[in-house]
């Protein structure tokens, strides 16, 4: 049996989530490099939509379906993942570093007695073993991680690995659902009203800091984000200022770590705490009145000026140029 690289994929409304497609594509690349098979693993009450994995290179699509998997449970899902690894003789288990991925993958790793690398930004196969590169110390360093265990588990940071279509056989197999006493289970999801993508998956982020002066002023950032097809974030200073901004908006070491293609920092000085959360952005734009603000050292493009003048001009220009209609 050719050993397998297994990727746990999440479905949402019958579609494979984008971070999972990215993990799957990276799995395909590793499988090709190491001469292994790629398996896509799904679990839930229904796995309809899983066939899509064949387009992204899955040789085998494994589904664990049943009422026991209607609600997400870390212990039951960890058992599904670990059982699949064992039954397929997989040596690598990948998942996206999402809320679910970061909850279940380390638990599955412990169940398998395997090493785990979280939120990785680079993967390679060296002498048949997985090697992971991941940011540590708030992005101030990168650690190359190697595994001591036979099975190797890692989660991939969203927005870092490109999702690439590559057709494969996509043979389907059904897995047995483990019996479980549900040590903990998700009872309810309290989603925010906005249907916008989460910061951790956003391609464009317009973020505001202390220079925004008030929470109500974030409206101009919303307008720019809408024009560019992005979402709005905030620095810790802005969230802690008592302007009524929720912690879920916070980008930084004690908030969200983001990796968008474009990050526009408005009125953000660039404290280490904030840089920790956004230094993985592909392009950084800084708009700040203070030419000495540390954020300019990081920015690809800097605008020294009043954000209350510049941001509306950007919105206007984006609309006239027909940008960001994606």
């Amino acid at each position, binding site marked *: 049996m050719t050993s397998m690289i297994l990727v746990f994929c999440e479905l949402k409304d019958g579609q494979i989530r984008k971070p999972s497609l990215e993990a799957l594509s990276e799995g395909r690349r590793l499988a090709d490099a190491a001469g292994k098979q790629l398996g896509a693993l799904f679990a839930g009450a229904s796995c309809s939509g899983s066939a899509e994995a064949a387009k992204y290179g899955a040789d085998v699509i494994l589904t664990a379906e049943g009422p026991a998997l209607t609600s997400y449970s870390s212990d039951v899902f960890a058992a599904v993942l670990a059982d699949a690894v064992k039954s397929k003789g997989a040596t690598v288990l990948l998942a996206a570093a999402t809320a679910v991925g970061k909850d279940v993958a*380390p638990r599955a790793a412990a169940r398998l007695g395997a090493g785990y*690398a979280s939120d990785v930004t680079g993967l390679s196969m060296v002498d048949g073993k997985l090697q992971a590169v991941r940011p540590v110390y708030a992005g101030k360093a990168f650690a190359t991680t190697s595994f001591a265990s036979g099975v190797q588990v890692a989660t991939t940071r969203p927005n870092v690995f490109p999702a690439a279509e590559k057709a494969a056989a996509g043979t389907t197999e059904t897995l047995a659902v483990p019996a479980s006493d549900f040590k903990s289970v998700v009872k309810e999801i309290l989603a925010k009203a906005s249907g916008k993508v989460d910061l951790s998956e956003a391609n464009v982020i317009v973020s505001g800091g202390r220079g925004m002066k008030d929470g109500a002023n974030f409206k101009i950032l919303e307008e720019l984000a809408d024009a560019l097809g992005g979402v709005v974030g905030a620095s810790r200073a802005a969230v802690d200022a008592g302007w009524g901004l929720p912690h879920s908006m916070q980008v930084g070491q004690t908030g969200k770590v983001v990796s968008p293609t474009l990050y526009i920092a408005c009125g953000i000085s660039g404290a280490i705490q904030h840089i920790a959360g956004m230094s993985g952005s592909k392009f950084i734009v800084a708009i700040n009145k203070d030419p000495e603000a540390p954020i300019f050292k990081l920015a690809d493009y800097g605008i020294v000026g009043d954000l209350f003048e510049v941001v509306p001009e*950007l919105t206007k220009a984006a609309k006239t140029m027909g940008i960001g209609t994606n």
Partner: protein
Amino acid sequence: MKILVALKQVPDTETKIKVAADGRSLDPADVKWITSPYDEYALEEAIRIKEGKGAEVVALSVGGDSVKEVLKNALALGADTAVLLKGDGQGDAFAVAQMIAAYAKDKGFDLILCGNKGLGGDNAAMGPMLAELMGIGQANVVVKLELGEGTFKAEREIEGGTEIVEGALPAVITAQKGLNEPRYASLKGIMAAKKKTIEEVEATPATTGAQISALALPPERPAGRKLEGDAAAQAQALLQALKDEAKVF
């Protein structure tokens, strides 16, 4: 009710990272060590449960003598007892989880609290690994916790919102910013902590799951470009550059 709070000592956020001569670890010179901020939310939650419904709070940390600072601070804040598990607390999350599980297994803890990740290593793995090794439930990245009779109800952060996780105690809960507002140690607490002793226990040997084979600083970002002109001109120039040079759009 008996609560275990697992605390990690980490380099301060502002620490300038230098790579040691071995090329795979942090140069400890000039590093200021602190309790991982997420662990402070975990400890605060334990103390609040103690104040609210009564509980015995045991603070635990894995490491060498330097880690006693973390434990002294926990005692000053209100932990009843402190345990130094002598072993490598800076290494692999799987190894640390095994050491803590081996210690905690037969101690009758109803609840285990820790940060959702240790600042620095950022693996976010120790909590769920500990839960699995102990065969108990978990809720990660928790911003609200309610305890019932042998049960818990936790609200945890997910993409675009939160979700409610329910389960039986004992369980591992990992704390996120927003769970509470950690207090500062009072003079009275600091004085009382001086009288308390830290129990030292040799950690059970653990297997390593993963290790760092190289540590490197990120490549410098090339110098950026300042855009000229008034606001309208800067806006125009920026979008043009993002379109033509960066090809963002």
